[in-house]
């Protein structure tokens, strides 16, 4: 079984890898590249724990093949903080207790960032529908939604 | 004398249907020992998988816990929880 050679950019760094044609991007990230921040909760695109951003689009890592990453720009949870500075979403999630067990947290953060990158002023309903593809079983979503709304307001304030 | 209360099932199965018992003893283990003299064989059912409420305070795996002279001591199924 011959492997596919893939050249891509992950969190701003050029990365090359060899993968089986059946491997998902999530498998490659977790098993080959050691980037285990993206989680596998279902393997079928239902839970969003593997959310990553590919060329600016929010994608479930478990639904995209490794081979499809050729030439793509991939952002994962590991690239969200700038050096030792947490992204405002990361910071507010901790401060506002928007996580309990934390397994869904990387996915929520990546998805929330994708939302705020394109819509800096979302309504609560927009946040809830955007994040409807990310499952959380611990929090009842309340504190997650509040944190995202809060960060959106904060980012709008700094942008002014 | 402590007032020992068995759950309905315990009473029916091991204590001839009697729910309430006046039992002397300073510790839970003494109560169990005395009850076992009255109802041979009951001790093993009261010592494992059982919770004991002494005056309304819940104890798991109680054995050496002290019992007051007028205490109400209830034996009931143990509680695990999620």
């Amino acid at each position, binding site marked *: 079984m011959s492997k596919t050679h893939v050249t891509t950019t992950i969190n701003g760094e050029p990365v090359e890898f060899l993968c089986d044609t059946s491997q998902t991007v999530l498998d490659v990230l977790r098993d080959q590249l050691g980037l285990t921040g993206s989680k*596998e909760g279902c393997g079928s695109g239902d839970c969003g724990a593997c959310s990553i951003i590919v060329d600016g689009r929010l994608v479930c890592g478990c639904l995209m093949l490794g081979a499809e990453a050729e030439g793509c720009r991939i952002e994962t949870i590991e690239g969200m903080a700038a050096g030792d500075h947490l992204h405002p979403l990361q910071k507010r999630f901790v401060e506002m207790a928007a996580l309990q067990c934390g397994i869904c947290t990387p996915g929520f953060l990546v998805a929330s960032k994708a939302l705020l990158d394109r819509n800096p002023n979302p309504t609560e309903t927009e946040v*809830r529908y955007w994040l409807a593809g990310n499952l959380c079983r611990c929090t009842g979503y309340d504190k997650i939604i509040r944190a995202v709304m809060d960060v959106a307001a904060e980012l709008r304030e700094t942008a002014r | 004398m402590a007032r020992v209360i068995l759950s309905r099932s315990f009473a029916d199965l091991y204590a001839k249907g009697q729910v309430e018992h006046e039992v002397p003893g300073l510790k839970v283990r003494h109560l169990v020992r005395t009850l076992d003299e009255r109802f041979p064989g009951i001790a093993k059912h009261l010592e494992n998988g059982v919770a004991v409420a002494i005056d309304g305070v819940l104890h798991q795996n109680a054995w050496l816990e002290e019992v007051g002279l007028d205490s*109400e001591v209830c034996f009931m199924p143990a*509680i695990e*929880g*999620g």
Partner: protein
Amino acid sequence: MSARTYKWIGTRPNRPDGADKVTGRARFGADFNMPGQLVGKVLRSPHAHALIKSIDTSAAEKLAGVKAVVTAKDFPEQENITVPAGEMQVNLRDVTRNIMAREKVLYDGHAVAAVAATTEAVAKEALALIKVEYEILPHVIDVEAAMKDGAPILHDHLRTEGVEPKPTKATNIAKRIDFAKGDVAAGFRKAEVVVERKFTTQPVHQGYIEPHAALASASEDGQVQVWSTTQGHFQVRGFCSRLLNIETSQIRVTPSEIGGGFGGKTVVYLEPVAIRLSQKSGKPVKMVMTREEVFRASGPTSAGVVEVKIGATRDGRIVAAECMVALQAGAFPGSPVGPACMCSFACYDIDDIKVVGYDVVSNRPKVAAYRAPGAPISCWGVESAIDELAIELGMDPIELRLKNAAKQGTKTHYGPTFNRIGFVETLEAAKSSPHYQTPVKRGFHRGVAAGFWFNVGADSSAAAHVGEDGTVTVISGNPDIGGSRASLAMMAAEELGVDYEKVRPVIADTSSIGFNFVTGGSRVTFATGLAVVNAVKEVVRELKIRAAKIWEVEPEAVVWENGMAKPASTNVGEFEPLSLSQLAAMAGKTGGPINGHAQLNAQGAGPGFGVHIVDLAVDHDTGIVTIDRYTAVQDVGTAIHPSYVEGQMQGGAVQGIGWALNEEYIYNAKGKLDNPGFLDYRIPVASDLPMIETVIVEVPNPSHPYGVRGVGEVPIVPPMAAVGNAIARATGIRFLDLPMSPPRVSAAIDAARPKMAAE
């Protein structure tokens, strides 16, 4: 309300594991790897009930890359006895059959064999090469069908426990239990209004987002290391020790961060299998369940039938209550029918009560604990019936509950007389909440329900180590599901009088701290919190001794205040207070390291009560229920970290909303689970919900130094009835069966239309 003032208790500092969890650095079950590890996969039964005639693994063993294959033959037979496995009572004969089927498969998804191979692809190929010859048997899923004469029998040796004389015929009813108070027949004779109804629930899954995962490494000298995602690594050790005949000291279990459990990760599925595969192959073996395996083979909770009868006088005094609860245990005995029976009427002060429970096996995965196990099922029935009673009597549902509320001195139907409890305070808080004080919006309807859970204490160990710079490490042995590290560190900081940031909590493996019972039952902040407080007290005692040595006075002459040793009075002498860091720096000269340890069986867990309020609308055409507003009110004793207390209340409420409106296991005619995935087993998503408001009531538990009761279990108890009660008021239809999913709601509305038109 709490009268004491605290520096840390009741504040909202950042959790100690926060940064790791928002950066992807935290390591969960599937994130552990070892060099040279193999991939383990399980072959599962496609049948609900079948005899295993033969298993041929020879072709799989020959496949290149396969390093080990195991079946039930590789696990020692166990006696049919109930034994403690780490503090839990388990029947080993059943547990070994649940992790690997022996004579029979008992449910769709039951493990039959497992392989370890160099890659996942090879492992999957090997599973396909294992030939299992089955003789398919008739199956039974539904609890009432399983109880009937002539039902397919799961276990030929099973006789109903708790019935005299002991039955001689094989049955699926594993146990009958009875609770009684007063004379229920006489009680009902006093009743002027009687509500009698039969309710049902479907099985629901805990739905943790992280699938089960375990990595095991067995070495040639008999030692075993396990990394797994669990609510109790000491239980993993206990189970593996018993199931594989390995001494506990030879097994070291390290818990990963846990991606949700809710009771479902208190038992073992993969760990013993991974160990056995590792022993046979001589390599580390990693096993991770797929989501489908999680649904088909790991613990959901019971489905149940609840028959409730409640009698009251016209003035709203409940005079008698009766309840029958039958719960599915799954393939092996052991449903939470005991707590279901005990919780049923625990909220109310009623003179005459009778409750009967049945534990029933059927061809479904063996149930595991799920948040307040059993209570949500019986309380769905009881709280719906109470609401119907309120409507019949024309009473406000909170007033009716207040009139009958259990309080200090109320004797429960399961035995104990309540000590200090806060149900009345919780009801009053619900009544005066902003939500209840606001009129319901046009088009919406309001429902209310209450719930109870005992909370649990049990065994905990903890240690506190003072570093050479005076900062403190707090070591405990309970996996942190929802922020317990923060609450433990806060209690330690409070007790020591130092900054929260100076205290670092860690969770130790089974070889690095003494025994701890599972994280569950809402016990960690209470019981392990007590152990931490005691360990810190020991540190403080030692610090006073060290200060006394430095000052050359008696230890009794030293007091500890605000993180400093001070002379107890001016009589002692003029000494500058010594800080923790000063004493730590002098530790070598004054007697060596300063540490404290504590171990205990925490007694006196404080009962918790909750009241939930929901406003919702029902779309009469589609049957879709839209929740507009939701409030959870609960007595938590003392909220150590209010944000995580609120989080527990919100999360539990939303799990309950899912149970009420959507979640259910759906089996086809062959007994195969039809919806083993998040697409078809629909848990609530963000767009289904409003914000979940919380009202924290604090009636401190006298058995805990900070008054902790526990919080996580209670909030899943009221939601189903609260939602059902609101739907009843919205539609005029009393729903008796969960879930109240759109097809069921619209069908019921359609069925009622001609009747309503005729009236």
